[in-house]
């Protein structure tokens, strides 16, 4: 359970006993990543918010069946991502990821390595990622933009880890091809 807070198991056990405060702490710890996973899937902030909220309610109702020794995050992400897929709109209201505005003067200067990829270049890379087929876009967004592990990506996308590996490799190849063809 890499990176898992020690107290998470205790919070899970307390929540399983009906402690809503403990569950609130668990939701707070995971709400950002849950919302972003839902946003990547729905491409709509309102839908993502609904999906994450509903997912947390469903997770509460299912918490009695969760094994406290297992990592909670993949389990939560699986539930929220399922809700997000159910809410994905068939047409319209799709939003696109964007790159943040240039760093303000108070922020740390980019490293030389970061500086090699300028703001325009990053926007172009993100545009190319957004134009990939859905399966490739989702797996690369989960693995690289959300920095999910293979296990978490598999849970969020409802596929096996091997599928995550193969889709990642194919997605990277397509992205590289698109990137280099525009260079």
């Amino acid at each position: 359970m890499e990176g898992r807070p020690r107290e998470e198991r205790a919070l899970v056990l307390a929540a399983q006993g009906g402690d809503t405060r403990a569950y609130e702490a668990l939701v707070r710890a995971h709400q950002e990543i849950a919302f972003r996973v839902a946003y990547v899937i729905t491409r709509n902030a309102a839908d993502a918010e609904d999906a994450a909220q509903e997912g947390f309610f469903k997770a509460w109702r299912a918490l009695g069946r969760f094994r406290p020794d297992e990592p909670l995050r993949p389990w939560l992400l699986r539930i929220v991502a399922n809700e997000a897929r159910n809410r994905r709109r068939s047409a319209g209201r799709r939003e696109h990821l964007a790159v943040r505005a240039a760093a303000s003067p108070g922020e740390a200067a980019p490293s030389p390595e970061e500086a090699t990829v300028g703001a325009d270049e990053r926007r172009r890379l993100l545009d190319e990622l957004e134009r990939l087929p859905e399966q490739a876009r989702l797996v690369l967004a989960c693995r690289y933009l959300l920095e999910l592990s293979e296990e978490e990506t598999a849970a969020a996308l409802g596929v096996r880890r091997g599928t995550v590996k193969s889709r990642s490799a194919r997605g990277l190849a397509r992205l590289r091809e698109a990137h280099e063809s525009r260079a």
Partner: protein
Amino acid sequence: MNLERELQLLAAEIAWPPTPELASRVASVLASQRGVASPRGIAWRRHVALRHAPGRRPLVLAVALLLVALGAAFAVPESRGAILRFLHLGGVTIERVDQLPPAQERPLGADIGRIVSRRVAQQALGQPPLLPPLDPLPPLHLEGEDFVSLVFLDHGEPVQLSELGHTDEGIFKKLVVGATSTRFVDVDGAQGIWLTGARHVFAFPHVPPRLAGNVLIWQRGRLTLRLEGRRLTLDHALGVAHSLRRAKM
């Protein structure tokens, strides 16, 4: 070009939408569901139900109740925390939708099921129904397996009281549009939801939806209650809620 490295650098530059504060919302709604078992209890009850009631269709599928709200000139609070897209209270799930089904103007007592005795109502709810102190008492109706209703006058206006005997599943589903005001209220120390400000559409499966009025939803023990009236005010609704007593069998 190290594409993976560039993607990792890109991750730090993404302008994600602000993460909504879900934890306090979720906790607030869960804390309001007094009488609802802990997750462990829910899982245990489901296990028992599956073992001892094979073949019984899930109650969730038995009754679906839609409540939708109409109205354009209605103030919607700016905070999404004030109006949630999804709310849960007892057996009720309220979901905001973008489009509403067509509805007819029909009486409150239309399509609320067959008239039943108090004993049948008790069997359906799993406990005696909560009733207003009226003599004579209007007839009780049963729709589906466990949705008990009665219609009576409050302050000269017809209101419909409906009761559901299960609180831990989304038995009811209520759909509202953004034009509806949805707020939490205190109902005798328990949390309730007051839906008002726009015309509503109320429908059972296979029954034509009808326009309806203001609605108070709350819980008492394992009962989920719903009070509806076209000109119902919150004060009057809270008065009715406070007056309810267990039926004498």
